[in-house]
């Protein structure tokens, strides 16, 4: 109880710092989480597009209406704001229908349309759809159709009519959102646990306090065990908070066996980070060093392992290096859980391997931490 009280005393003394740091990391996770609907049926991807109709005729309105069906049409909010939306990939292109478009389409198939684009794969889809519309319109113009009849004929011809079969597991979108949430949470969990535990243990490892404890009547092993227990309780509280937050944000998708797997993965990761914090607290002796190293480890892991950027976008060399970081195996495991279609030992092998590697990391950190603690004790 004495150790627990001392632990709580250190926590209380650093309460403002702890609250600010925890609130910020939880806030990052919350803000980063974008809500979305889960779907078991195929829904066509609708890239964001801004369309500026300067012609404002029946034909141009018909084109805008087609774009509204096939894309996610955003309102134009002035050139500066439109350019921002393009730069930050909120939209993939800005389509300007020029004045005189209705007259242009009989002489040229492009109708004089101007496009500002990011040139990414979403634009390929928009360009394809637009080109299809313009070609059909040009064809019917050649057939002598004009005005309302032309718009109607084009509209009917470009309507989607192919059967699409979706072979996705139920709630796949919700599960992939859960995987995204836990991937980002890897940063928050790392920062929260490493920072606070290292901060507290650094206070206990202060030379004078360490010596005072060593010469006291308290059994040192019991003292260490109690300290570990307190740190473990704190780490569990952090894990529990992030899991509950995940359930609140991801909803029913996490109230399932897969939800349990997500939670189990984050628990194994939490244990791994807890062991890492024991190791670091044996090496770091000042609060400034703790803040610096924690930020480098948390942000470094997050950038290199795919917490901030999807792993599919990371270079191969970075991914190869990331294998030596626990966060990589955590994020890989969570993504694999989201992709599992049916629960069987064969399908779970990949996930279990990730959990196993994280436990190995935890073991290495714990053994190294104990060795350093023992060395520090002998030195004193």
């Amino acid at each position: 109880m004495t150790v627990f009280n001392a632990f709580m005393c250190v926590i209380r003394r650093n309460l403002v710092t702890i609250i600010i740091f925890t609130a910020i990391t939880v806030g990052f996770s919350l803000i980063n989480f974008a809500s979305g609907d889960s779907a078991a049926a195929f829904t066509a991807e609708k890239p964001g597009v801004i369309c500026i109709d300067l012609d404002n005729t029946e034909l141009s309105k018909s084109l805008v209406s087609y774009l509204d069906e096939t894309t996610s049409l955003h309102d134009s909010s002035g050139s500066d704001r439109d350019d921002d939306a393009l730069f930050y990939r909120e939209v993939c292109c800005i389509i300007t229908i020029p004045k005189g478009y209705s007259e242009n389409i009989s002489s040229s198939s492009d109708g004089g349309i101007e496009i500002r684009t990011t040139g990414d794969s979403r634009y390929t889809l928009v360009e394809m759809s637009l080109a299809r519309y313009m070609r059909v319109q040009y064809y019917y113009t050649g057939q002598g159709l004009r005005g309302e009849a032309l718009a109607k004929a084009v509209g009917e011809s470009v309507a989607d009519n192919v059967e699409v079969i979706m072979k996705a597991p139920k709630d796949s979108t919700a599960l992939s959102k859960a995987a995204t949430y836990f991937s980002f949470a890897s940063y928050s969990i790392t920062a929260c646990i490493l920072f606070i535990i290292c901060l507290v243990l650094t206070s206990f490892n202060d030379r004078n306090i360490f010596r005072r404890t060593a010469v006291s009547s308290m059994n040192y092993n019991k003292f260490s065990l109690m300290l570990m227990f307190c740190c473990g309780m704190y780490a569990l509280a952090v894990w529990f908070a992030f899991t509950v937050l995940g359930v609140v944000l991801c909803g029913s998708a996490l109230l399932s066996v897969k939800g349990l797997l997500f939670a189990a993965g984050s628990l194994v990761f939490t244990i791994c980070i807890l062991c890492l914090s024991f190791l670091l607290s044996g090496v770091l002796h000042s609060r400034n060093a703790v803040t610096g190293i924690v930020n480098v480890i948390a942000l470094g892991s997050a950038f290199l392992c795919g917490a901030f950027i999807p792993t599919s976008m990371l270079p191969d060399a970075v991914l190869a290096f990331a294998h030596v970081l626990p966060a990589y195996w955590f994020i890989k495991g969570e993504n694999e859980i989201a992709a599992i279609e049916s629960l069987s030992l064969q399908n779970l092998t990949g996930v279990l391997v990730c959990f196993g590697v994280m436990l190995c990391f935890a073991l290495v950190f714990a053994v190294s931490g104990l060795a350093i603690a023992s060395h520090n004790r002998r030195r004193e």
Partner: protein
Amino acid sequence: MLLHNFMYSLLVLLRSRGLVFWTIAFPLIMAVLFNLAMSNIESSEKFQKIDIAVVQSEDYDNNMIFKNALEALSGEDGLFHIKETDLKTAESMLNEKSITGYLTLSGDDVAVTVKNSGINETILCRVMNEIKSDSEIVVSGGTDVINQKIASGEFNINYEDIFREETEKLTGGELKFKDTSPAHMSYVMIEYYSLIAMACLYSGLLTIVLIDNKMPDISAVGKRCSVSPTGKFASITGSLLAAFVVQLFGLALLFALLLLLGADFGSQLLYIILLSVAGTFAGLTAGIAVSVLIKTNENAKTTIMISITMACCFLSGMMGISMKNIVDVNAPFINRINPVAMITDGLYALYFIGTGSRYYIDLASLVAFSLIMLILSWSRLRRQKYDSI
């Protein structure tokens, strides 16, 4: 006296390993991390050919329009890598995610089987729709031509030529829209900009240490300084100048590293330097405000400053590039008072738009932010007098 204070403040700052780490080493480490993580991000968003499979069947072998269309789409500049295979293999390829989807033909009807609702899946479905509707248009148009010929008494009809002509009318000729895309579209630059902004704000850590050394209720050095005959203005200005010099040195190193890593700062280097100097001043004054207004120990102040800076960086897009735009759209007020966003936005304006009102507004906002921080700090510091005996 100002020079004396400046020299000693400089020594204090350079001898502190923690401060040197935060203001110089940490931004450099982050720059390397950004470069490693982001080096692939823009090429990965470009369109890559889509892998698909077609299930072999009698209907597929007999449907020449469909076969020809797929052949055209799998050429060198085409959209797809196509593999012809049986249903079982196609299903297992879809499960292994080695293909985006597979096509099955039943009569003239095409069915597309996919696993997700992504961009590639939508492209595949839309192309199949296009092939189907194009063939319907051609058949309908060709039939009209044939009927007209028969009605006009012309019975020597070459059906193949008619359908080829209709197909040419529909699909012939290259369609190229007028491209007015901006030249500078690399959004990885936002990461670098937010990093520069972060480095500017971290200068607050320098002033926290220096101002704490002037506060009699915080440190013993503060007590000594307060009872010395040095004026408050000379003492604080000397410290501020020293912090400014150290931070500018750190920023110069960061710029050099970013240039080495391939960052494109365009031709507006003077404006960038001007904004960085204003950003550094904002960071220094924010540090003074934290130091003066929050009554706690130096370590807690440092953590508060780092936490505030990280939160500001998060809202400016450092941990996800689109975040700045999301905040700008949904809660613009937040980024109007966020100094990191002011610096990031100013640098973005220079890169994307050029010097204009937006850049100057960001610059003025930074100056206003600095003045507010100084006024707040001064309001707390004035009237604190200690006798020198």
